[in-house]
């Protein structure tokens, strides 16, 4: 295929799936536009402390991918950008890209002087609300591009403290939204997922009790760049937990919540059990489950961590989490023993599932399955990648995205 003749492939979403699809397509010679709503690439994975099953930090995998992106002239990466409109045309799609105001330009060196003078504090969404940061900040230490961002709506009226502090004239508070029209041959939708909202699990203390956290919050607690600099502590007391309980299938496989299994939460909790034991060897960990779903070679994780001293796996889904004397109390039936337990814990982690992003609001009018996951529409040049298609772990998302790149190239070539 001659890249001079073909229209580019548009990849929506620069998480691990989108990056993979973009690079795989570009490395065959195609030109690719990779758009990302966030100010950084890496998506959900950027917020993780470790991957299973190898338990290595995702930052190294992302770093390799970022180098590939930087070195490949055929990939154009647009962060803080969304597809605001799309129209099917002969040979592909005409899309409108809406770019957020460039309050901070590429002149930013990431020196951080602006953050020091910023008088406003905002909730840090990257840490899932567990910390706050100045309104002008780097999204997270490994963010790429290494460029500061402003939560403009939070700025005090007329405040220009950051502008005055910037030695590189990189900050322009009067920047506006810009749009760009583009014709592309095919589209890869790698729009990823959102964690199931904790607030919908109030019967399990979600959104009600401060020491009931979600599994994605646990990743941030364990991460050195997180709100506690990597120390796993109870949010209410700031003390290390002595007893940690994991509630599996919290809002999953449940007709009242997500009807499907996300397929990763069992492994995530086992991984989190290891985080806890690594930091606090004497802390007791209990994992309450319906089924232990650790397919393939992930079975080894179950064997290795499940057999650790002080890690207990109990069959039975937790029905209630309430505040009691001296901590949280979980009510659960130990199914194998046939009796009710009122389990004490200082920290409860709800193993929540993955919700496909943007259900019902795709400018491409993508078809979705009954659970809201997107379906390939090859005839219209739409290809899905990663968790946008189905809930998977990182390794499977990468494999899926590689296949998606091939389909997107075929669709673009046919269209051109």
């Amino acid at each position: 295929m001659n890249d001079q003749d073909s229209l580019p492939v548009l990849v929506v979403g620069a998480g691990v799936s989108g990056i993979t699809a973009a690079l795989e397509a570009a490395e065959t010679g195609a030109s690719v536009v990779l758009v990302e709503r966030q100010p950084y690439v890496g998506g959900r994975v950027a917020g993780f402390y470790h991957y299973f099953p190898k338990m290595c930090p995702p930052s190294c995998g992302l770093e390799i991918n970022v180098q590939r992106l930087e070195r490949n002239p055929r990939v154009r990466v647009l962060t803080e950008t969304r597809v605001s409109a799309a129209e099917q045309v002969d040979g592909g799609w005409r899309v409108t890209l809406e770019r957020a105001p460039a309050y901070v330009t590429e002149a930013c060196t990431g020196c951080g002087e602006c953050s020091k003078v910023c008088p406003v504090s905002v909730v840090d969404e990257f840490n899932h609300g567990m910390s706050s940061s100045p309104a002008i900040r780097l999204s997270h230490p490994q963010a790429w591009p290494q460029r500061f961002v402003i939560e403009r709506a939070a700025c005090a009226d007329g405040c220009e403290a950051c502008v005055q502090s910037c030695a590189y004239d990189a900050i322009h508070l009067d920047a506006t939204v810009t749009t760009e029209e583009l014709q592309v041959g095919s589209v890869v939708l790698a729009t990823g997922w959102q964690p199931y909202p904790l607030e919908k699990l109030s019967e399990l203390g979600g959104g009600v009790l401060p020491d009931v956290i979600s599994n994605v919050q646990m990743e941030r607690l364990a991460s050195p760049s997180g709100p506690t600099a990597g120390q796993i502590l109870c949010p209410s007391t700031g003390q290390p937990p002595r007893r940690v309980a994991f509630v599996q299938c919290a809002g999953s496989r449940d007709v009242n919540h997500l009807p499907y299994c996300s397929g990763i939460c069992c492994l995530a909790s086992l991984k989190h059990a290891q985080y806890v034991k690594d930091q606090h060897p004497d802390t007791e960990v209990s994992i309450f489950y319906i089924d232990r779903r650790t397919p393939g070679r992930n079975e080894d994780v179950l064997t290795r961590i499940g057999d650790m001293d002080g890690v207990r796996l109990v069959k039975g889904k937790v029905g209630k989490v309430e505040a009691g004397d001296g901590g949280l109390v979980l009510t659960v039936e130990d199914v194998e023993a046939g009796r009710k337990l009122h389990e004490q814990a200082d920290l409860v982690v709800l193993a929540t599932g993955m919700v496909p992003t943007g259900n019902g609001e795709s400018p491409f009018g993508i078809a979705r399955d009954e659970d809201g996951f997107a379906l390939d529409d090859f005839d219209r040049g739409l290809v899905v990648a990663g968790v946008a298609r189905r809930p998977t772990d990182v390794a499977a998302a990468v494999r899926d995205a590689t296949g998606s790149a091939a389909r997107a190239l075929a669709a673009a070539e046919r269209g051109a």
Partner: protein
Amino acid sequence: MATVPLIAPSEDFRRELRRRGGERASRCYQCATCSAVCELAPEGRPFPRRQVLLAQWGQGDQLATDPAVWLCHQCNDCTVRCPRDVRPGDLMQVVRAMVIERLAAPAFLGRLVANVRSTWPVVLGAPLLLWVLLLGLTGHLGVPPGFHAYDQLVPHWLIYSVFFPVAAFVLWAAWVSGRRFWTLLGSVGPPRKGSFLASLVPVFGEISTHGRFSNCEAGRPRRWGHLALLWGFVGAAVTSGLLVVALYGFGAQLPLPLDHPFKILGNISAVLLVVGGVILLINRLGDPQKTGASTAFDRFFLTVVLLVIATGVLAEVGRFFFPAAVACSIYIVHLSVVLTLFVTFPYSKFAHMLYRTLAMVHERMTG
């Protein structure tokens, strides 16, 4: 080598369970949310997760011996939270109906009421026909001249000659079923300790306030309706007993004046019955996720209770305000639905009074 116990699922039980609306048992994946959220389940033997499994596996024999089936008050806290929409609360209700039929004496009456979805014209019609026939044969079918009291229409001896034998039969049938159930309860699990009576007294105390109902969340309004009905019926029964004493012990004349203490007691009972009946009816018509799905078996019992209350109140009021022929007709219908209520006691949902009480006594004696 250790032997593995063989579980023989009863296909008949499973078919019958499906037919009666318990087909959702097969959806259950045993997560035990139901047992965890149930406020009535004992710590050491939680339900209904285990019972759903037994139903799924066609273990009707085990369910018949299980007190938990009756300790459930169908408050539906489990149904609201069940992730698979198994509706365990409704399933327990279906299982109770199956146990009632299984232990019924004589069996054909159990079958008749169990199939009330199609047999209701017989169950409601036969007593009405009986009264019309009896009144016709004794020359009482017609508006009595100078009508002012119902004993002009149906003489007391006629009422006694129907209700005394019926009461004796119902007591016998309840005794036989109760004994069967008591034996089954005792055949498994820990042995009972102490005397039956010593446990029955506190159980009556608990029933008199419906203490357990207060723990339920989803079915909370039902507690008050159910309690009002219970005390309304107790009041009505006491009034009837006192009337007999007044009639034959003290030569009282019917109808009693409105300010007579017995009359006041009867009317308070009527108010309780109406209030309770209305609460339960409204509840039944509400969100089935919280109130439980209605099977024909459930609807039949509630219908008969509501008919007894409605015809009773209308007969009382009708004597003053309705044409005599209307009032007399209502009274005859009242007698017939009361007869239906009595006769079906051991076979309808009414029998939960017997079975749940025994299960609660058993629970105390083994607890």
